[in-house]
């Protein structure tokens, strides 16, 4: 592999990490509250409101049913509004975040829903308000699942970021298509695949370790 290609590879790794990390962070910040809202407003939840629940559910399902490559293009006006451009790595973070947030919200929702209702009742019986229940019961008890779900979301984002090359965002997927596939640079293709395997395994390993440390359920 030539030094130029190697430099390209390094830059692509950085772009992928940036896209995955930034959109992962954003999906955590918005997806977790959204997941909490989905659980809290559902029937029997701590802030039961079936109307709100239905609207939130529909929005989440709407975004989740659009294929990412279409979302990437359809969101161009929104992207331009937020980052000032519709091209490049930062521009890709907007559609990636918007796709990952409802995805992560659903993943977090599943973990939050599994928290034993008896624990919520115990917190209510102690005089806890909704915020107490969220802070002391729902989130800490669901934390292993919330972290495991975040790991899955990050790995999914690495895959989705490969499509971001379509709007000039770069990244490993883009490198593999333009050099490895279109220019028959087999060494680039192999290098990209190896780097992706290492990235995915690393994230999964770190996530699993963290879950094992957090899980006190015996």
């Amino acid at each position, binding site marked *: 592999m030539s030094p130029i290609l190697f430099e390209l590879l390094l830059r692509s790794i950085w772009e992928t990490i940036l896209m995955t990390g930034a959109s992962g962070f954003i999906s955590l910040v918005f997806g977790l509250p959204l997941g909490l809202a989905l659980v809290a407003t559902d029937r029997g939840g701590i802030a039961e409101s079936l109307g709100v629940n239905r609207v939130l559910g529909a929005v989440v399902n709407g975004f989740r049913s659009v294929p990412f490559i279409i979302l990437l293009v359809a969101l161009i006006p929104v992207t331009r509004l937020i980052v000032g451009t519709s091209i490049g790595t930062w521009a890709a973070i907007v559609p990636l975040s918007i796709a990952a947030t409802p995805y992560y919200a659903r993943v977090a929702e599943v973990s939050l829903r599994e928290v*034993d209702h*008896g*624990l919520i*009742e*115990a*917190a*209510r*019986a*102690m*005089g*806890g*308000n909704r915020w*107490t229940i969220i802070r*002391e*019961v729902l989130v*800490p*008890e669901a*934390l292993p699942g919330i972290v495991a779900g975040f790991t899955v979301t990050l790995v999914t984002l690495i895959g989705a970021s490969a499509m971001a090359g379509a709007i000039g965002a770069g990244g490993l997927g883009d490198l593999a298509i333009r050099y490895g596939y279109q220019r028959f640079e087999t060494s680039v293709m192999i290098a990209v695949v190896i780097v992706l395997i290492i990235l995915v395994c690393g994230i999964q390993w770190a996530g699993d370790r963290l879950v094992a440390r*957090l899980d*006190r*359920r*015996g």
Partner: protein
Amino acid sequence: MNQHFPATAEIPVDTTERPEEVVRLTALKRRFGVTPALDGVSLTVRKGEILGIIGRSGAGKSTLIRCLNGLERPDSGQVFIEGREISRLGEHELQPLRRRIGMIFQHFNLLSAKTVEDNVALPLKIEGRPRAERLARAAELLELVGLSEKAKAYPASLSGGQKQRVGIARALAARPALLLSDEATSALDPETTRSILALLKDINRQLGLTILLITHEMEVIRSIADRVAVIDAGRIVEEGPVWSVFADPKSAITQSLLGAIRPQLPAEIASRLTHGAGTEAILKIDVAGEAARGPLLSDLAAAVPGSFRLVHGGIDHVQRQPVGTLFLAVPGNDANHLTRVIAFLKAREARVEVLGHVANPV
């Protein structure tokens, strides 16, 4: 008061003295769909007493106990806690009130992500107390329940009995005026159940804490309750001091719940009972109070010559009152003899029932 067994000075619950009411329920009703869970329940719990509510599953016990801290709202009727009507209060107003009421649960409901001491301290965290104060109080309570060495452990490493001890410590953290126990021993083995009940009784005596417990086990009522209320299909069908309800259960449901802990006629005798004549009559004798304390059987032998045999039975002590059931076999070929035996026992305020006759001595 029970007519068969007049009150004596030793009866623990003195009806002439009325300590202040911690809980008063009036005509509480709650229905789920068409099924009434509570169908007009009125009850009072006085300061310092242990009131046990017993009923089968689905009798309305859980709904009842949840009405006391506003986890469940009655359709009609009133709930007074320390004189304040709470059944119409909003969630926000209920929160400070719930801190006056501790609650323990069948499945303990400890937070798996928190250490034992943080679980115990949680009610104080909710109250907004500083961390040092919370941990000091948690240490004090863990010592009370005998789990000081487990302060830094996580609940998953504890046995069921230890978990419930943590649950009790947590329920006491905010110094409640009332402790609600929702089938607290139903998930525990008999030995652990006894130790948890002993702990609750201890806390009741030491701290003067009022306890309302619900259970489906008469044994729980027998061991620690002062008064018992029997609930069936959303109604209180019987209520009174435990010893007096045990001595003379009025309702069929109470009798059936008591069946589990009272002597029953052995099956091999029961299967041979006939209603015709036989060589022996089998009598069931319920005794309590003076009748159970005195030398009833030797007096019977002296007063009515002629043999009788004790077939089965025993005297239990409930709230320091003897309460028992005896099964006697009396020679049945002389009707006059049987009549005299029954007359003697009735004069001693025992309740006598002729169950039937058996052909050959058993």
